[in-house]
């Protein structure tokens, strides 16, 4: 599955070796303990999404409530509570993900390709700046970014969440290594000799070769944007621009406020609905992101 990017001499051997190994039950059981640890909270979430607010209080956490199977009720309530604000948050999240993560992937692909395949004035400076800036904790930038955006009138608009999401230094790095390995210089030379423009060459020849890398970067930027908490927390005041993460947490906090209604069943069901799309994306696209990771992040 990683043949396009790994050193071709190495790939055939591991397969043969791995198939010939004797399996070990003890080792499997130990690893299964780890998988159990992973799955318990997720199981808890699924089970408790089937309970009413009362059922949550008087039933055992890892088993269903005896009185009522309320999953469908909970989903309906989650989607309609407070005039369907959950759907609004879902829509916002999708907007931030499509424009933010999509844009981040496009910029990282163009940039990574440019760094891998061209020599240009200031390239080393670009390299040094990006690497240096990655070490700066993202949250350290949040306050000044907020103040800057607030002066530009961007806070409390979708742009305040989208623009910072457009930069993924990790994505740039991944596409850089990927472009260097996956696109033979000879192909680019041939296209240039044929008179194709640089951008035509890029879209017609390079993009198809970069497929697995692009999917990987897209998946990781989608996760980063979908799961983003800190940035929208400081940028947005108006609940109608909230993404799901902030919205869910505001439902959870509601129980603490004076006169607020406790809606833990909706928090739990909403959480389940929030993670399902991403879990599905990771499961269905395994082939791509696993090979993309192998190519990029872990070169010796």
């Amino acid at each position: 599955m990683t043949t396009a990017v790994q050193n071709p001499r190495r790939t055939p051997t591991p397969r043969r070796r791995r198939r010939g190994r004797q399996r070990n039950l003890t080792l499997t059981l130990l690893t299964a303990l780890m998988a159990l640890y992973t799955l318990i909270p997720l199981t808890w979430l699924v089970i408790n999404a089937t309970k009413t607010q009362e059922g949550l209080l008087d039933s055992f956490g890892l088993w269903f409530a005896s009185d009522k199977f309320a999953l469908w009720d909970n989903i309906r309530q989650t989607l309609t509570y407070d005039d369907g604000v959950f759907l609004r948050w879902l829509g916002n999240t999708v907007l931030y993900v499509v424009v933010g993560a999509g844009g981040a992937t496009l910029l990282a692909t163009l940039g990574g390709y440019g760094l891998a395949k061209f020599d240009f004035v200031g390239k080393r400076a670009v390299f040094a700046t990006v690497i240096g800036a990655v070490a700066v904790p993202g949250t350290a930038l949040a306050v000044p970014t907020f103040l800057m955006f607030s002066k530009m009138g961007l806070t409390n608009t979708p742009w305040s969440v989208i623009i910072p999401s457009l930069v993924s230094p990790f994505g740039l790095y991944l596409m850089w290594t990927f472009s260097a390995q996956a696109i033979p210089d000879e192909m680019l030379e041939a296209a240039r000799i044929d008179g194709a423009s640089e951008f035509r060459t890029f879209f017609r020849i390079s993009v198809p070769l970069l497929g697995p890398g692009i999917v990987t970067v897209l998946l990781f930027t989608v996760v980063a944007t979908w799961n983003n908490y800190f940035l929208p927390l400081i940028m947005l005041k108006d609940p109608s621009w909230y993404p799901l993460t902030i919205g869910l947490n505001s439902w959870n906090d509601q129980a603490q406020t004076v006169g607020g209604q406790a809606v833990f069943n909706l928090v739990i069901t909403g959480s389940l609905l929030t993670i399902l799309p991403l879990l599905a994306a990771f499961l269905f696209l395994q082939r791509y992101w696993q090979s993309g990771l192998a190519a990029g992040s872990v070169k010796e």
Partner: protein
Amino acid sequence: MAVQQVADAPAGLRGRSARHRRSWTGWRFVGPFMAVFALVFLAPIGYSIYLSLYRNRLIGGNSFVGLDNYTQALQDPQFWTGVGRVGLFLVVQVPIMLFIALLVALAIDSGRLYGSAFFRVTIFLPYAVPAVVATLMWGFMYSNQFGLIGNINDALNVKLPEPLSANLALASIGNIVTWEFVGYNMLIFYSALRVVPTSLYESAELDGAGQFRIITAIKLPAIRGALMIATIFSIIGSFQLFSEPIIMRPLARNVFTTDYTPNMYAYSLSFAGQQYNYAATVAIIMGVITMVVAYVVQLRGTREK
């Protein structure tokens, strides 16, 4: 950070393509990224340095105070308590998480497991769960009200220690962070192990080396780049600790105070206290501490080669 690995990797920096096209053409590809990068990385860094040198007073307005904010922060016990807390978190949680991740990666890579593909994907899954959801879930389970701990106490008529009491709160956060990221780190290690040439293991086995010896002498040195990257990412992540404690704050307000971590401190300084200049100073000091620690770890890692 991780400069060594990163600098070695992309062939384009020195490769054959470097010889031709030394021009501005590359900028047409790199330019858009760098423009946004300048806006959301470089400008805020510059702006926070500027902010940290000024102070805003009710009387007298905005005035230049030199390094006064830094002097104040360096003597601020609230700040240092937070730093100590994330420092403790770093030296305990990160090694545990990375060690487990490494064990699982070695187990899956060994080819001796039944259903290794299932384990690989399952253990990675929490990475796709937002920190908010992960913390809400664990927070519910920790709580006495209708959580698992409460259930177990009732069912067995025992009194388990409270996960959100002052003594255990940091460990409880460590558990959430471990749950979220152990699979991600496992996958980084696993991907690195996959590209180790297997001829090395085979000849070692022929020479009579045991599995433990093969792991310590061949596998670990071969994936040191991945180990380093994972360590540095984890260091940065620990120093930035924010979402987990702030989301659990309603469950235990006296434990998760507004200065529980340096990041929470900077956040509450600016958004509850309007002390933007001081918050920027705290953020810069945290950034510098992070970079220094990451750099020292990186140096040690390279020297041990």
